[in-house]
């Protein structure tokens, strides 16, 4: 499954700090990072904190990754300015809402704005279309970020996560 494979990629790349605001789509990956003795999983009160966390970790020589839902992208816009100005490497894995088959209308505006918002702030957006593309895309994002000092977001499509209703979401 892709969460296990993403965890392997993060581990292989030497990621030590994992900031997250939970999302049902990230549930398994968060659990894997929490259970990994070499990783520090940091629960955030808002996604914005994850940008500061990643910047501080990099100042101290450690690689990190940031996990959030698409709604969280709206919470990080201004501080992405620091990432760009300082050329901090940053990898953000975004589970998408407000895309195909969304059941909560309040998710649609931010979900549809996620890509343009990130691009407007200088983040490179990778959007794998299928489950098979996710892991190679995460691998490429880690290399682009840490070899080229780029901010890179990987948008994990709602179709792959496959949550279809509130009942489905809470039962996961």
């Amino acid at each position, binding site marked *: 499954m892709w969460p296990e494979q993403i965890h392997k990629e993060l581990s292989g790349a030497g990621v030590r700090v994992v900031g997250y605001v939970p999302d049902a789509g990230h549930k398994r990956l968060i659990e894997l990072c929490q259970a990994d003795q070499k990783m520090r999983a940091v629960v955030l009160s808002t996604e914005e904190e994850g940008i*500061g966390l990643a910047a501080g970790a990099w*100042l101290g020589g450690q690689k990190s990754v940031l996990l959030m839902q698409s709604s969280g992208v709206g919470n990080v816009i201004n501080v992405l300015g620091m990432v760009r100005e*300082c050329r901090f490497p940053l990898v953000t894995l975004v589970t998408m809402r407000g895309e195909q088959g969304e059941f909560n209308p309040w998710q649609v505006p931010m979900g549809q704005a996620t890509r343009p918002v990130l691009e407007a702030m200088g983040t490179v957006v990778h959007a794998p279309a299928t489950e098979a593309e996710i892991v190679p895309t995460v691998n490429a994002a880690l290399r682009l970020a*840490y070899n080229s000092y780029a901010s890179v977001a990987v948008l994990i499509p709602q179709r792959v996560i496959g949550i279809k209703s509130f009942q489905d979401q809470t039962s996961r």
Partner: protein
Amino acid sequence: MKRRDVVKKLLSGRKDLLVIAGLGSTAWDITAAGDSPLNFPLWGAMGQAAMIGLGLALAQPKRRVLVITGDGEMLMGMGSLATIGVQKPKNLTVVVIDNERYGETGMQETHTAHGIDLNGVARACGLNVVDSKNLQGAIHKAPGPHFAVIKVDAEKIPLVLPPREGALLKARFRRALLGSKADAE
């Protein structure tokens, strides 16, 4: 108390202390005390100073990390105190230089001018609140995370500006801290 005197005293005998400063007056204060490659003064990203300190403290557990920021900046990132309270980094101290004003925008009053108690917030989040006479020991030695508010005069004083290019500030900090490893990744 005068903010420049307070910050100068905080940083006297700093040795290999790693210092993050919030945007605005505290960035000028740490620069007035003596610019250093181991200073990371922010020119933006309001609300993130304490979180940058947390990331740095987790990445460098053998070094001591000091965040110096203003009351307005801390108020914008108050949730980060809860996040720090969960992680409990022993090597992190956050000091708020509290003039009860937004100093860069016309000296408007902040919430702390109306009795909002940042020490109380930090204490409720599990940080160790220290008074100014124990601050040096907290910054350099005692297990943290520590938090302190130092009330200072609301005064307009000359700016003392650090380098302003973000990439330069980042690169010089990493080279000073990590040596040749900074460029090896």
